[in-house]
C-alpha cells in the first residue's frame, strides 16, 4: 500500500509542496500515482476553451480559444492592493500653499507685562488689524501649521516585477465570475466569463450598446448610467464634476482600436484599454479586483504574448498552493484513507462554562429548584392576567350598563317633555346647532357619531351640573330664577337643561336606579342625583 512510503500528514500539508524524502525519486511512488492525479486533474481543467462570440447574439459562437496562461496566475489581492495604492499616487499633481501666506506682516510679540498673550501682534494703528495676533497657526489670518510644500514626495516607484504580478493577478480575477459579482457588476445574464467577441463591427455607439445588451450587459450599463451624480465634494468645482460607477472594460488589440474608440468610448461607465498597454488602475479600480472585462479575440489571443514576450523576462509567480480546492483535497480518497477513523461519540466543548443566567441547564445544576420557580412565576403571571381580564370585562360591562341606563333615563325624560317633536333640538347649544346645519346629508353617520360623543360628554358634565343643581334645588323651590341660572351655566357647554327644569317629570317616570353599582366616580354623582330626586317625591 502506498501509505507505507510517507508519514501521516494533515490535508493542509499535503497540498503545499513535496518536502524531504518525497523529493527523492526513489521515495516517490510510481509516476502515475494517485497523488499526482490530485494535481494533474486540476491542471487539465484549468486551461479550458473559451468561446468567441459573434455579433448577432448569444448563440453565435464563431470559435474557441484556449484560455491564456495569465488566468492561472495566483490572485494575490495583497500585491494588487499594494501596487494599486502606490501607482495611484503617480497621477497626482503637486499642490502647496502660498509660501508667504499669513506671513506678510511685520508683527512682533509685545512680550510680557501688557496683559496680553505673548503671540506676535500686528503693529501700527488706525486699523482694526493693528494689535491683532498674527503668524501662528492658532491665529486668525495666521499661517497654517506646516505649510504644504510642493516638494512633497508625490510619486512612488514600484518594482516592475511586482507591478507585473499585480497586473496578472488582476487579469486572472476578471475571469472568476464570483469575484466580478462581488465587485458589484451585474453579470447574472452574461453567458460566459471571460466574454470574448471575435471583433467589433459596430461603428456607432448605439449599435455597440445594442450588442452589449444582447449579451446580458444591460443591467450593468444601466447601473452606470443611473449612477451619474454631481460630486459631493469640492471636486465639483475643480473639473471633476460628475461621479459614475465603473462599468465594463473593453480590452482590444491594435486592429480594433479605432472602431472600439468610436463605438464605445462615449458609453457611461465603459472604459477602453489596449491589451499591449494594460493598466492596473483600470483592471482593479480602487484596488478591488474583478472588473467586468469584455475582450476582443485579438486581445485575448495576444495575452499570452503580452505577458511572456512583451514583458521581457517576466515569469508568472508560482502559487502557494497549486491546488487550492481544500474541499476536494480533504475529501479525496488519498487523504481520507490516511486519516484515523473519527472518534465515536466525540463531544466538543464539554468543559465549557455556561452562563447559568442564560442557560437553563446550567442554572439547574446550581439550583435544582430554579425550574420550579420559573414555573410558579409563569403560573402566577397567568393568574394575574386572568384576573385583570375578568376585572376589565366586568368594568366594561358595568360601563356599558351605566351608559345604557343613562340613555334610558334621558330617553324617558325626552319623551315626557311636551313641545319638541324633533329629538335633535333638545340641544339648546348654538354650537351644536351650527354643526348640524353645516354637515351634509351624506355624512349622517358621522353626525350620529358626533351626537353620541356629544351626549357622552354632555352626560358627564350634566351629571356634575345635575349634582350642583340638585343641591341648589334642595334649598329653592321651582323658580324661574333657577332656569336662568342654568341657562347661564349652559354657555359653551353641551348640557341637558331639562334635568334641572323638569325634575318634576322625573318623578313621573318609572326608572329604578337604586340597584345599579357603577364603580366610576360618575356613580357618586348619579347616586346623588338619584337620591336628591327621590327625595323630591
Amino acid at each position, binding site marked *: 500500500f502506498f501509505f507505507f512510503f510517507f508519514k501521516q500528514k494533515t490535508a493542509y500539508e499535503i497540498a503545499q509542496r513535496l518536502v524531504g524524502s518525497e523529493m527523492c525519486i526513489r521515495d516517490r511512488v510510481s509516476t502515475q500515482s494517485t497523488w499526482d492525479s490530485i494535481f494533474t486533474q486540476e491542471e487539465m*481543467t*484549468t486551461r*479550458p*476553451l*473559451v*468561446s468567441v462570440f459573434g455579433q448577432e447574439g448569444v448563440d453565435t*459562437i464563431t470559435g*474557441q480559444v484556449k*484560455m491564456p496562461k495569465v*488566468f*492561472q496566475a495566483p*490572485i494575490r*489581492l495583497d500585491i494588487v492592493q499594494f501596487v494599486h495604492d502606490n501607482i495611484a499616487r503617480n497621477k497626482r499633481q503637486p499642490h502647496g500653499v502660498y509660501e508667504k501666506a499669513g506671513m506678510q506682516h511685520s508683527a512682533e510679540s*509685545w512680550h510680557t*507685562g*501688557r*496683559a*496680553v498673550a505673548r503671540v506676535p501682534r500686528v503693529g501700527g494703528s488706525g486699523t482694526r488689524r493693528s494689535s491683532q495676533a498674527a503668524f501662528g497657526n492658532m491665529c486668525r489670518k495666521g499661517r497654517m501649521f506646516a505649510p504644504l510644500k510642493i516638494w512633497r514626495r508625490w510619486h512612488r516607484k514600484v518594482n516592475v516585477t511586482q507591478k507585473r504580478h499585480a497586473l496578472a493577478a488582476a487579469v*486572472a*480575477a476578471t*475571469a*472568476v*465570475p*464570483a*469575484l466580478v*459579482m*462581488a*465587485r*458589484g457588476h451585474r*453579470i*447574472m445574464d*452574461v*453567458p*460566459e*466569463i471571460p466574454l470574448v467577441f471575435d471583433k467589433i463591427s459596430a461603428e456607432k455607439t448605439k449599435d455597440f450598446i445594442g450588442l452589449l445588451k444582447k449579451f446580458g450587459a444591460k443591467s450593468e450599463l444601466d447601473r452606470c448610467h443611473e449612477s451619474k451624480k454631481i460630486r459631493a465634494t469640492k471636486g465639483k468645482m475643480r473639473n471633476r464634476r460628475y461621479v459614475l460607477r465603473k462599468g465594463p472594460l473593453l480590452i482590444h488589440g491594435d486592429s480594433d482600436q479605432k472602431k472600439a474608440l468610436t463605438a464605445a468610448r462615449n458609453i457611461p461607465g465603459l472604459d477602453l484599454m489596449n491589451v499591449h498597454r494594460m493598466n492596473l488602475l483600470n483592471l482593479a479600480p480602487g484596488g*478591488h*479586483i474583478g472588473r467586468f472585462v469584455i475582450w476582443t479575440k485579438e486581445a485575448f489571443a495576444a495575452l499570452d504574448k503580452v505577458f511572456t514576450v512583451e514583458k521581457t523576462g517576466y515569469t508568472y509567480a508560482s502559487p502557494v498552493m497549486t*491546488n*487550492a*480546492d*481544500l*474541499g476536494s483535497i480533504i475529501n479525496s480518497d488519498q487523504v481520507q484513507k490516511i486519516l484515523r477513523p473519527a472518534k465515536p461519540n466525540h463531544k466538543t466543548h464539554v468543559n465549557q462554562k455556561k452562563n447559568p443566567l442564560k442557560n437553563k441547564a446550567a442554572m439547574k445544576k446550581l439550583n435544582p429548584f430554579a425550574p420550579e420557580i420559573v414555573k410558579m412565576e409563569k403560573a402566577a403571571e397567568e393568574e394575574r392576567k386572568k384576573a385583570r381580564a375578568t376585572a376589565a370585562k366586568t368594568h366594561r360591562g358595568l360601563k356599558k350598563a351605566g351608559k345604557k341606563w343613562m340613555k334610558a333615563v334621558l330617553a324617558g325624560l325626552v319623551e315626557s317633555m311636551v313641545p319638541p317633536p324633533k329629538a335633535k333640538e333638545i340641544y339648546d347649544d348654538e354650537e351644536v346647532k351650527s354643526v348640524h346645519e353645516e354637515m351634509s346629508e351624506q355624512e349622517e353617520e358621522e353626525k350620529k*357619531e358626533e351626537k353620541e*360623543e356629544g351626549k357622552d360628554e354632555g352626560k358627564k358634565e350634566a351629571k356634575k351640573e345635575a349634582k350642583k343643581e340638585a343641591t341648589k334645588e334642595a334649598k329653592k323651590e321651582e323658580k324661574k330664577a333657577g332656569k336662568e341660572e342654568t341657562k347661564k351655566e349652559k354657555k359653551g357647554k353641551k348640557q341637558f337643561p331639562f334635568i334641572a327644569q323638569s325634575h318634576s317629570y322625573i318623578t313621573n317616570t318609572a326608572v329604578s336606579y337604586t340597584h345599579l353599582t357603577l364603580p366610576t366616580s360618575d356613580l357618586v354623582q348619579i347616586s346623588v342625583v338619584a337620591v336628591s330626586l327621590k327625595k323630591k317625591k
Partner: protein
Amino acid sequence: MASNALIWELTKGYSTFMVKKKECGTTFSTDPFNLTNKYNAKSTGIAHERALGVSVDMKVGNKKKGQKPVFKILIKRKKHILAKKAKAPFKRNLNTFTTVLPLKKGVTQAAKVIGKMKMFRPDLHHDALRRIAALHSVSLRKTAIKKPEKKVEEKKAKQNPQITSCTCLLYTSDAADERSSVDLGGRRIIKKK
C-alpha cells in the same frame, strides 16, 4: 481556476454584498445566493460551486386581490444545463450558470421544489426551507395591507382623544452671555521706548 476557498478568502474582507452595521454584531450579506443573509463561509453563495437563492417579488395583481407574491428560485450550478444543448465540438465553458425558476403557484410550489432539491445542497436544505417560510410570512403581511385600514385608524383616533404632552424645549446657552469681545480689564500700559 480559483477555488471556492480562495474566492471566500478574497471576498471575506470586502465585497459589494457585505453589509456591516455598528449596531449589529454580525455582518450581513445581500448575496442573492445566500439563504441566511449572513456573511460567513458556510452561507456565502458566490463562493460556492453550488448555491441556491430564494427571493420573493410582490407583483401587483388585480385591485381586488391586491399584491401577489411570486417566489423565485435561483440555482447556481457547476455547469450550465444548456451545455448539453450546445453543438459539438463547441462545448461551452460557462462560469455564470444561474437558472431562474419563477414559481407561479406560490409558497407550496416553492417548498416542494426546494424539497426535491435537498441533495443539491444538503447542508443548507434546512436554511432554504426556513427562508421560504420567512418570505412567506412577509408576503402575507404585505398582501394584508389594505386601504380601509386608514379609516379604522381615524375612527379610533377620534374615539380616544389623547392628551398630547407638549414638550417645550428649554435650553441654556452660556455662550449667549458672553460678548463678542473681551475687555482688557486692567490699565493699558503704553509701551515705553
